[in-house]
């Protein structure tokens, strides 16, 4: 109890406890410092160690929140002077002239197009494949194989993006060349497959970039989808089976409706990753001064690859500020996409459980 009672007990003469099973300890148990008795009104006694530990833990939580705030703030503060010095319309211009801080003209419209186009190509390709893999792993694959197979898919995420860049630019692009030319020739009447600002056969375009990005976001979407599909209540599945449904009908009527919104949330996470991917695209996309033709055979730069390419120019605050402005737009977009993804995911988790 209180210190005094305790020490009384500990120092009780041995005779009194002679018949006990457990002898009293020879030395008193060292006690940790107890916070001094609290002033009246305050009820809880909290130990010094607990107080310190709790403060440190809470502080670290606050620190994480502060980091995100600081990211937004620092990027904003550094971007504003550059935006003031900008001679072009930041949102609508396609130029990127930042070398001379006295005479800067930069805008993000072309960056936005390449970023969005390559991410969407990636998403369109990756979503059905990821959904298929997730269904295969959770509903079809034998239990013993499901784990190693899932591990194999996860290995895709362990390959660094610079390696994907090399592979995309040097190995995949030449293989894709005839495909790209064929697509361009036969479907060229659809604007999105029309001639881009570089020849369709060049390989260093949104088409190649999108395919490589699709491979890169595949494990992300698959991971989330696998988790939500696996959570389908067994009673629902068994209910459908008891009605004589085939496996496909079970998937279509229970697993898919149950996991759909979680799957979409996972796709949003993948989109966030694709929007911010840097090095693979820096390696794959060729840089051209000609504006985009709004085709998947365009080349150019994304927000992220533009920043990476510009790192050689980072020698004065205004120039850096221009790149930071682009980075800020990227930060805000990925923040929004990720927030929506989490919202969808948590909504689907709450609605179903």
């Amino acid at each position, binding site marked *: *109890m209180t210190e005094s009672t305790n020490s009384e*007990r500990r120092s009780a003469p041995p005779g009194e406890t002679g018949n006990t*099973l*457990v002898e009293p*300890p020879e*030395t008193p148990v*060292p*006690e940790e410092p107890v916070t001094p*008795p609290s002033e009246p009104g305050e009820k809880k006694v909290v130990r010094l160690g607990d107080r310190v530990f709790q403060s440190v833990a809470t502080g670290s939580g606050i620190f994480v929140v502060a980091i995100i705030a600081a990211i937004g703030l620092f990027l904003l503060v550094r971007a504003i002077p550059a935006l003031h010095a900008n001679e072009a319309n930041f949102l609508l211009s396609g130029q990127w002239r930042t070398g001379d801080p006295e005479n800067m003209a930069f805008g993000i419209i072309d960056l936005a197009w390449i970023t969005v186009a390559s991410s969407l190509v990636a998403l369109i390709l990756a979503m059905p494949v990821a959904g298929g893999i997730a269904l295969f792993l959770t509903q079809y694959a034998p239990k013993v194989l499901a784990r190693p197979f899932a591990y194999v898919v996860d290995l895709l995420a362990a390959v660094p993006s610079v390696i994907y860049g090399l592979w995309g630019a040097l190995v995949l692009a030449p293989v894709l060349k005839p495909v790209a030319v064929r697509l361009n020739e036969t479907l060229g009447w659809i604007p999105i497959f029309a001639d881009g600002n570089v020849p369709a056969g060049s390989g260093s375009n949104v088409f190649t970039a999108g395919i490589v990005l699709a491979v890169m976001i595949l494990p992300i979407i698959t991971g989330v989808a696998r988790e939500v599909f696996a959570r389908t209540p067994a009673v629902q599945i068994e209910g459908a089976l008891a009605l004589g449904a085939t496996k496909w009908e079970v998937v279509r009527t229970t697993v898919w409706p149950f996991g759909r919104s979680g799957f979409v949330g996972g796709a949003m996470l993948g989109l966030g990753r694709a929007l911010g991917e840097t090095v693979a695209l820096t390696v794959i996309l060729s840089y051209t001064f000609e504006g985009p033709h709004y085709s998947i055979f365009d080349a150019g730069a994304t927000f992220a690859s533009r920043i990476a390419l510009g790192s050689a120019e980072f020698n004065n605050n205004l120039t850096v500020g221009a790149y930071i402005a682009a980075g800020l737009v990227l930060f805000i977009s990925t923040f929004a996409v990720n927030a929506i993804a989490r919202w969808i995911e948590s909504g689907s988790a709450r609605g179903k459980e």
Partner: protein
Amino acid sequence: MAKRLDIKDLNLYYNKFHAVRDVTLQVHARSVTAFIGPSGCGKSTVLRALNRMHEVVPGSRVEGSVLLDGENVYAPGVDPVQVRRTIGMVFQRANPFPTMSIRDNVVAGLKLAGVKDKKRLEEVTERSLRGANLWEEVKDRLNKPGGGLSGGQQQRLCIARAIAVQPDVLLMDEPCSALDPISTLAIEDLIAELKKDYTIVIVTHNMQQAARVSDQTAFFNLPAVGEPGQLVEIGETGKIFSNPSQKATEDYISGRFG
């Protein structure tokens, strides 16, 4: 060592839910008090309030007082950690620390309080394990993990762990409910021995067990669904089982409880 407990007007809450109402009872030193009653009537909740484990649950609240030899464990300025060192507890499911050896499990309370003296730890290990009737079974494998023991052995290990810190009172929440009959008997024998030195409060579902091991018995009940649990009556075990003063007690004991 052993001390008396006086519980006065104890009201216990989980957030807004009033779990137990107005419990007043005495627990005598060096005796066994059994708590019996239907599931959900608040036996565990009362038991956990005695060593301030109740407040570990977020949102929980305590009103009333628990006096240990006249001193209120809920008085302002009393450190709950000290209370728990003085009033030990054994849980329904044996919960040895999985990362620790048998030896380290026994002396966990001392070691975590900073005792480093090897010789003393050795002594306490042996004494506590003997006290829990486990010494002969484990003395050759003190360095093996506690999780490798059988369920009954694990529960006795937990009792050894609890008595190693030399508490004044030992609380046991259905300590045998997960055990086979043989292990149960071993624990009941142990309780009979431990009561020479400790004040023991035991929650049990098993009425024969209450009759076998306890000196006095408290019967708790739920007056109606959604209402807080209450203490119906407390008395000498023999009297409660042969001649209870309340009808509800008699119904429960004779199995006529709805």
